[in-house]
């Protein structure tokens, strides 16, 4: 870990990175309808300005000596309460700057794309406000110099995600999906919060620099606990097993949101968290192994379920789940994988954003239809979309030379190079995932862009013919730029370990070893062969025979299981929702009959007894006289007892 330096020069104005999008969001939200005309332009402008500042800071940083690249910028004292001193500061190091470029770069492109995509929406201004809010929160998440600022950004992106998933609030599915995302994120956030509590309780600070310098003083058990709790937070935010099921539902939001938040940036926050906390994970083997397991399981779940869906966005969503699984797997490999995870994160940010924007373009031309069975033969109608989408497709299946090939194969290679059984298990999981990825992506591309034009015989939901058409330049230019990134980014980052070297001050040196059963060459060949098999199988099953418009109901059990998300929702339902409901009912019961019963019981007791006592007031003066006389006798008798007994 490099020493931390105070920020100087250009870096001192890096707070503008946060301030600009936040300012945009504020203006758009407070300005209301008055800003409708130019709101989207302001939104784009703030992001692009932030990108420029990020770029300048980045270039400035590359000019520094390697040892000076980790800088901190103290902004103000945030929570000055006795023993709890939290400063609001930014940490400018290669990792955060990389993320800044990804967020503002891809974010800027998607902002521009959204101008076209959301042009028909009368609330476009508010949409841009939320997007700006998201970018500001995400930048805070990656730039914050302590776990508390990270948590602030973490919740901020959660809020933005919630608002944007539920954008079409008139659709019950969207509202439900937003709530689901929010609730499942809460589960993870609790883990993150507890991890921060433990850190603060033990180290009395949450500042990265101090925490990482002193983490070794803690007991191994505490470190493992912190690592696992951080992982829980990461699982929630990144849609990893067992909290993966919210992410596909989140596709109810507008497609630019899916591309930006639920593919390129926010869902990778979990990977960022694990990589950022690398000094913690370096000290716990069990924690890292858990991360790897979570990643491996998730990537297989994502691939398998992705094969069964017909909804183009859901397939891409499960693809995202699976790709983030790769990143987690890599991050769990420790010093052998942090940089690989970030590399894959960046390339994935390019090609997955591109794929989503392509899918959005297809939907835009197909009247918001998402069912791939109604597509087909769109290549001729929207060639630019098809080409850019195709490049993203080739990148994700790891076609040699494109980005995915470099980033994903490196992870598979690193997974195989683990010693002993771990190499076999994780390597095979990763390579099988690659084959499945090739299959479902090929299936998607064939069903969408090739084959019979099934939409010709169909009507839209509101009874019109489909008129597929190419999107406007404001939409396809960002797609093109992302496609270029899909082609070149991998090679640029990976060749000569350019990115890994750049990230060294943050993540440590990328280590390599060959302890596994196979050599790197064999692994590459194996990966390519499996991917090719996947492609061929997809062509044979989908491309050679007609695709039924209606989804076949009679299918084999693996398909049924995959269509049911491998029973992820059912699992949540059984393990969490049901017991929660039971607990709820028990509490309601207890509240009703225990607490309310006690309270009401006292009331009823007094009311009943007073109702009976009341009857003593008969209004008959003689009965009053009777009781008076009785009382007098008792009184006199008592006096006599005292007088004569003594």
């Amino acid at each position, binding site marked *: 870990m490099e020493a931390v330096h105070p920020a100087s020069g250009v870096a001192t104005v890096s707070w503008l990175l946060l301030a600009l999008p936040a300012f945009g969001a504020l203006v758009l939200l407070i300005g209301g309808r008055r800003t409708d005309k130019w709101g989207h332009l302001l939104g784009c402008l703030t992001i692009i300005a932030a990108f420029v500042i990020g770029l300048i800071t980045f270039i400035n940083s590359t000019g520094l000596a390697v040892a000076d690249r980790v800088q901190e910028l103290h902004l103000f004292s945030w929570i000055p309460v006795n023993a709890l001193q939290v400063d609001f500061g930014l940490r400018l190091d290669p990792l955060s700057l990389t993320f800044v470029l990804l967020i503002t770069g891809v974010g800027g492109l998607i902002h521009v794309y959204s101008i076209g995509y959301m042009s028909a929406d009368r609330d476009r201004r508010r949409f841009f406000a939320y997007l700006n809010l998201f970018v500001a929160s995400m930048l805070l998440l990656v730039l914050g110099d302590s776990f508390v600022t990270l948590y602030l950004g973490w919740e901020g992106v959660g809020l933005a995600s919630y608002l944007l998933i539920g954008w079409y609030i008139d659709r019950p599915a969207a509202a439900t999906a937003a709530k689901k995302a929010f609730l499942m994120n809460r589960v993870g956030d609790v883990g993150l919060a507890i991890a921060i509590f433990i850190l603060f309780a033990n180290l009395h600070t949450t500042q990265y620099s101090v925490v990482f310098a002193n983490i070794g003083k803690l007991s191994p058990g505490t470190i493992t606990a912190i690592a696992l709790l951080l992982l829980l937070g990461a699982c929630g935010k990144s849609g990893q097993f067992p909290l993966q099921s919210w992410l596909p539902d989140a596709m109810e939001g507008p497609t630019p949101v899916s591309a930006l938040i639920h593919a390129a940036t926010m869902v990778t926050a979990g990977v960022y968290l694990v990589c950022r906390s690398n000094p913690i994970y370096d000290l716990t083997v069990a924690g890292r192994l858990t991360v790897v397991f979570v990643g491996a399981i998730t990537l297989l779940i994502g691939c398998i379920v992705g094969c069964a869906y017909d909804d183009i966005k859901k397939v891409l969503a499960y693809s995202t789940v699976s790709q983030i699984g790769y990143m987690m797997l890599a991050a769990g490999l420790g010093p052998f994988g942090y940089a690989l995870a970030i590399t894959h994160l960046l390339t994935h940010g390019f090609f997955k954003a591109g794929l989503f924007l392509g899918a959005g373009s297809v939907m835009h031309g197909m009247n918001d239809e998402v069912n791939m069975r109604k597509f087909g033969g769109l290549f001729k109608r929207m060639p630019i979309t098809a080409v850019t989408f195709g490049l993203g497709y080739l990148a994700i299946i790891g076609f040699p030379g494109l980005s995915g090939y470099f980033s994903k194969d490196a992870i598979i290679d690193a997974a195989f190079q683990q010693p002993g059984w771990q190499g076999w298990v994780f390597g095979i999981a990763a390579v099988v995932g690659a084959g499945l990825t090739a299959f479902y992506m090929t299936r998607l591309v064939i069903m969408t862009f090739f084959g019979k034009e099934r939409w010709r015989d169909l009507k839209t939901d509101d009874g019109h013919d489909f008129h597929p058409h190419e999107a406007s330049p404001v939409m396809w230019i960002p797609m093109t730029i992302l496609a270029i990134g899909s082609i070149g980014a991998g090679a640029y980052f990976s060749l000569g370990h350019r990115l890994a070297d750049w990230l060294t001050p943050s993540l440590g040196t990328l280590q390599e070893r060959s302890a596994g059963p196979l050599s790197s060459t064999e692994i590459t060949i194996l990966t390519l062969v499996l991917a090719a098999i996947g492609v061929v199988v997809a062509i044979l099953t989908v491309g050679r025979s007609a695709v039924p418009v209606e989804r076949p109901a009679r299918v084999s059990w693996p398909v049924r299981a995959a269509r049911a998300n491998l029973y992820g929702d059912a699992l949540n339902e059984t393990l969490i929702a049901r017991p929660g409901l039971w607990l709820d009912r028990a509490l309601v019961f207890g509240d009703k009959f225990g607490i309310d019963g006690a309270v009401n019981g006292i009331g009823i007791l007094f009311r009943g007894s007073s109702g009976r006592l009341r009857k003593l007031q008969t209004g008959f003066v003689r009965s009053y006289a*009777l009781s008076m006389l009785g009382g007098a006798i008792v009184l006199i008798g008592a006096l006599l007892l005292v007088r004569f007994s003594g």
Partner: protein
Amino acid sequence: MIHEAALFAQAASDTVNKVGAGETIIFWILGPIALAGALGMLFSRNAVHSALWLVLTMFSLGVFYMIEQAPFLGFVQIIVYTGAIMMLFLFVLMMVGRESSDSVVEVLRGQRLWGGILGVGVAGLFIGIVSQSLVDVTSSNLNGPNGTNGGNVANIGRSLFTDFLFPFELTSALLITAAVGAIVLAYTGKSDRRGRKTQRELVAMRFRGEYSRPSPLPGPGVFATANSVATPALLPDGSVAPESLSELIDSVPISEFAHDLEVSTGTEHHADAHALTQSTSDSDEEVSHS
């Protein structure tokens, strides 16, 4: 009278600290009579009888006071209590409750039983007290107070205006208040006729024009063959009196009452048995009309 009281006191004071034989005899005669009077008051159902029984008891008590060296109180008892207060009771009884004798049925459940039990309890309690602590009492000599400075009455008067002056003044206030209270409660005067005019005054006011019309509104069915509300009153000339129509009926056009009018004035066309026979009847009618 006062002289007599002094004599009684003198006689009693001769037997210094003892109760004399005469007093014993009187006690055993009048004691049961007093008890009998009390029980008679309790059990007689007629309130007048109760009052008379009570007079008996009070009279006995008056005698007891005299032989207990309190001649002044004895005469006050007889004159004020037996004479005045009990007569006031009888007076009120004659005014209000003479005929009201208590019914045998007790409406309050257990009232008699518990009243009896508590009465016995009270009696037992008091008798217990007396038998515990007042058995060996001796009669002190009241010769001092009663024999000097003008005797019993003079000494009571002196005490009242010296030692008991303040309570005595308070009783005067009490009596004044009671007298005023009794007047306020019992006085009826003319209060219940306040604001009500006599019939004569009312007629005069009507004819002076202080009311909308001199006579009351006509009731329904006046001069008509029916007295239903739906039947309007008729004026002497046979026309409908509009004031007699209720608001509800008033809102209905008067033409709809044509039939009712016929019925009520007797000009209704009745079914004629001859109408069924021959046209001769028609011609007859024509003839008669012509």
